[in-house]
């Protein structure tokens, strides 16, 4: 259904659970379910991730321009994070680090979606 309404409407962010606050968002399609959010963590090893966003308010037209969602993955205040085989659909960018988008979709076209073989933040 997102972003009608946004991801943080039904449930308020609760710091006890380190919830995302979407403080880096500037555009509507940023306020969507994080596929993977890594916060204040180290030595995280991910081998194969398929993180998908198929709709904007139940409309899949956004797939044509890979603009259903701004990012699939957020790494925040973390290091020694290794992701192998990251595959996304419908994302403008694949990974954001501390609020900065680092992997635009067009560089990594792969069949129906996008992929990177390694994303590391050593």
């Amino acid at each position: 259904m997102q972003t009608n309404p946004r991801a943080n409407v039904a449930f308020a962010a609760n710091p006890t659970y380190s919830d995302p606050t979407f403080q880096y968002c500037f555009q509507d399609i940023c306020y969507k379910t994080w596929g993977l959010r890594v916060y204040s963590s180290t030595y995280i090893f991910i081998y194969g991730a398929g993180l998908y966003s198929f709709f904007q308010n139940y409309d899949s037209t956004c797939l044509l321009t890979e603009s259903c969602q701004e990012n699939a993955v957020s790494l925040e205040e973390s290091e020694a994070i290794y992701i192998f085989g990251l595959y996304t659909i419908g994302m403008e960018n694949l990974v954001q680090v501390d609020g900065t988008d680092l992997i635009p979709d067009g560089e990594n076209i792969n069949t129906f979606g996008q992929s990177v073989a390694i994303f590391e933040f050593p």
Partner: protein
Amino acid sequence: MNWDWLWSFKYITVNNCSIGINLAEQSTPSLGSAFLTDSVFTNVNQAIITNFNCSVTSEPAAGSLYIGNVDFREANAAVSYPNGTVILPGGSIVPAWIQGETYSAYYGPEVFPTHGNETCYFPMAKQVCAQQSVNPPPVSSGLLTSSGKFVDRGKPVYDNYPVSAFVSAKTSGCAGDGVTDDTACLQNLFDSVNQNQVAYLDHGAYVVTSTIVIPPNIRIMGEAWPYIMVSANKGNFGDPTNPQPVFQVGTTGQTGFLEMQDIIFECLGPTPGAIIVQWNLLQDSPASAGMWDVHWRIGGSAGTELESNICSKNPSVEITTPNPSCYGAFLLMHITSSAGLYMENNWGWVADHELDMTDYNQLNIWNGRGLLVESTAPTWIVGGSFEHSQLFNYQVANAQNLYMSAIQSETA
């Protein structure tokens, strides 16, 4: 293997084959990504065939492949093109090899001339298309066996247990009828089984209205995926500002083994204050505590009271207000800071469409969160999915030493 978005292979053995894995049946790369680890090719001519090449720019990332700790000692070619041209020769154990687009992120400097050449540091990434050996990542030793493979543990099948070892929930007096409150009955069952028995949940729907504490050192098995139906009708599990666990596996600081398999958790009406599984238990040896084929299915099916007759989508409304009658849980699975466990094949699905009512409509079910991992002890999450929660599907917070392989999510 000429299609699909995401593959993860481990502990694969290929014997006496001309070709092991063929990624090049089509003229251009068409595979999403594949990961191959802790595997052995014996008496194989071409272990892996690919047509990936960094000079192919139309789909530069197609055919992504990562090889980690794979034994090619008895393969002629580890990776080769369809015509036999060798990319990576056989004859050795390959610690780490990659083909595809690679990004290494770092904080890099940017100088601001208008501010006295002050230097600030921002996240940046170096991109390289690679088809070569690479340094293996610094995998935590606690995630590995003594022989350097990732810990792997298949679902226990209890084939050497006598029938008398299975303690039936229904024989023990639980109703499992989707109506009766079985909280106390299930608690008694889990408290009563010993280390030589299995708490056996006969197929049915068991309504739970307050926290059940699962003691360490027991085994729980469902018959053809019985339902644990979380209900807020006794006042618990209804308050999102005071979330409570439904299945609390061990308490903080407890160590032991635990095996749980073949169960589906559901919500019976809205339970926005429910943490459906809260796992506190620390395994007493690698993967001795774990869950196999335990799933969450929130709404969209008969008996949940979260179905298309009241929860269908309505995208034509300018700003949708969540219907309080269509909430799922606060959080599906919480691995707390004291925990360490092995999870294999666990699917946390918030229904984005109806399964039983014949309109099969798309649904607005409001579930807060999917999986939250806060553990620092070694934890493995193998082959799973969390889909259609609101804030996050997977979140790793204040965690360390985590292995996840083949994770999948879909945005709400």
